[in-house]
């Protein structure tokens, strides 16, 4: 009844090729946007912003970026943490060098710089595939973290080796620093997320997305039908790097405010984002959101249940969290290897016929 193309007649080409061709989908999308932009900013407080909403928004951007690379183009990357670090440090250098420029520009530029670095480390993907490539991207992870730790120019020769986000604004509203209001930081991240999701959704529907998927499904066959693997793989690395760079910049400047590179952008971050993509669903934008939401909420829920309600010591709850995350990943892979996005697709199929399935 809901997801039905029947009766939804398109009368122009613009109608036919719009982002959400099914009416119900489109309205749902408008409602989500209206709630996210129009209602949540008035209800938000510091706890909700910092514990749940900001990490969710920022990880969603990272997950979309990684999903383009892994889910759409089939190039497995374990270097996400390192690329996020590039975004963070690029943003930091720009913020401190040009204090009067708007944060929007800084974050976008940080994304662009990360895209360049990502393409550079993506070059070997033309020769190596599969696991070899996955392990090769670890080279990026370790090298970049080491670089930001050891070269003082990147952290402006500060004594602690950390980077701290100075107070910066955009259109006169404070975005970074401890005094930034929760609604402003939330909206700032939300704008980037909405932008990234829209771009990703439309790229993956178009020519570029199709060449990526051709490369993913079988690269030799794709080459034979005329897909240029150099162009396809490099664009995937570039777009993915752009998104991951934006998320790294936001993660540092807006969410954490102060960053020690080994801790914030270590190998665990790479795995975390990869988990989001796999649990959410490879090759699905919605899946990126679902995976990010799930893995952001899980530790919060476990902490509330374990520490606050049951009163167990924090270290035991932390260990339980490892066990539960590990077990959940295995269970998910066994029960639904295509992730939560697949559950959603199944639900949609059911909704098409509901309430008269015959």
């Amino acid at each position: 009844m809901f997801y039905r193309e029947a009766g939804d007649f398109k009368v122009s080409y613009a109608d036919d090729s719009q982002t959400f061709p099914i009416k119900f989908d489109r309205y749902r999308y408008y409602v989500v946007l209206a709630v996210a932009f129009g209602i949540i900013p008035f209800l938000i407080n510091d706890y909700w912003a910092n514990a749940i909403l900001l990490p969710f928004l920022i990880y969603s951007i990272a997950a979309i970026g990684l999903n383009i690379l892994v889910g759409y183009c089939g190039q497995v990357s374990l270097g996400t943490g390192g690329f996020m670090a590039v975004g963070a440090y690029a943003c930091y250098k720009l913020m401190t060098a040009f204090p009067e420029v708007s944060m929007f520009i800084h974050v976008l530029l940080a994304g662009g710089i990360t895209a360049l670095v990502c393409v550079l480390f993506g070059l070997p993907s033309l020769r190596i595939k599969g696991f070899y490539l996955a392990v090769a991207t670890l080279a990026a992870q370790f090298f970049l973290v080491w670089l930001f730790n050891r070269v003082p120019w990147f952290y402006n020769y500060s004594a602690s080796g950390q980077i701290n986000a100075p107070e910066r604004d955009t259109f006169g509203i404070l975005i970074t620093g401890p005094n930034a209001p929760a609604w402003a930081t939330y909206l700032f991240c939300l704008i980037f997320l909405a932008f990234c999701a829209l771009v990703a959704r439309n790229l993956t529907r178009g020519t570029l997305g199709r060449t990526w998927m051709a490369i993913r499904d079988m690269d030799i066959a794709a080459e034979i039908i005329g897909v240029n693997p150099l162009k396809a793989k490099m664009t995937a690395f570039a777009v993915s790097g752009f998104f991951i760079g934006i998320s790294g910049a936001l993660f540092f400047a807006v969410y954490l405010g102060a960053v020690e590179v080994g801790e914030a952008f270590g190998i665990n971050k790479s795995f975390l984002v990869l988990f989001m993509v796999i649990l959410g669903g490879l090759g699905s934008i919605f899946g990126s959101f679902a995976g990010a939401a799930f893995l952001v909420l899980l530790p919060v829920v476990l902490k509330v249940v374990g520490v606050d309600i049951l009163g167990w010591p924090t270290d035991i709850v932390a260990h339980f969290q490892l066990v539960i995350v590990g077990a959940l990943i295995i269970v998910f892979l066994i029960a639904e290897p295509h992730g939560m996005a697949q559950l959603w697709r199944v639900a949609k199929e059911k909704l098409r016929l509901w309430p008269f399935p015959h």
Partner: protein
Amino acid sequence: MPEQLVFAMEVTLNGLMAGVLYALVALGFVLIYKASGIFNYAQGVMALFAAMTLVGIMQGQVPFSHVINAVFGGHVTHFGWNVPGVLAIALTVAVMVLLAWLVQVLVMKHLVGQEPIILFMATIGLAYFLEGVADLMWGSEIKTLDVGLPQGINLWIDETTFNMFGYGFFIDNLDIVATVIAALLVAGLVAFSQYTKQGRAMRAVADDHQAALSVGISLNFIWVLVWSVAGFVALVAGIVWGTKSGVQFSLSLIALKALPVLMLGGFTSIPGAIVGGLIIGVGEKLFEFAIGPMVGGATENWFAYVLALIFLVFRPQGLFGEKIIERV
């Protein structure tokens, strides 16, 4: 003889010893990859788990004691006995075999036929799970492991080199023992896979699953066997590394050290793991010695990866890997 050269020789020797240790971890990966096509990220955590179990059994710790104490209240920590090393090792092997069986029955059996990346993710999940379980069972504090392996400077080498060059090399006894153990282990594995029935069945499965099935080899049994052998290798690696630097979380990170070794040597080759380990060990120590001071040190973190990356661009299947043939 110039001083720098002598230092470089010492660094090279130490690098060779470190390389043997890397190879020890890499072996476990190769075994599982060859037999089942699974890239087992959990190998490092298995080494940690094995070492912690060994320490726990030797000291007579009660498993899960601090969880029980925290949740139900109580002060049970130890059974109050100490188990001798040999018996404890035997018990730990039994635990690792049990673990292998559980992994096969609960996880891998349900994932047969999935894409390699899904299997890889499952082993990452397994790594998280095992790490959590190990911490819950035995506690996460740093433990010392002593099963009687010799440690400290080898005086004989020190004296001999002092007489030859006027400078005594520092070589740890433990590294020498580790080299001997690794050599024995490789010889044992080769003998096992060449001359025993199960070993041959294992190689058959590695070659072709379906053909192996059709001549009556039980895949289930072989996979349990392979995971057990990998668990045993993990135990050996855990003992050596644990004796060297204490049993703690960082032990599981040796898996990350073994990855470039695998890339260099090829995922499917046991000699490749050894040679790759030696190249990486010597390479990173020499690089740190020669270039490290100029760029701020701690190059060991990434040198192996970058070396392997550059190498792979020229030879995508690694030194000894099987040639990659693609058909459309």
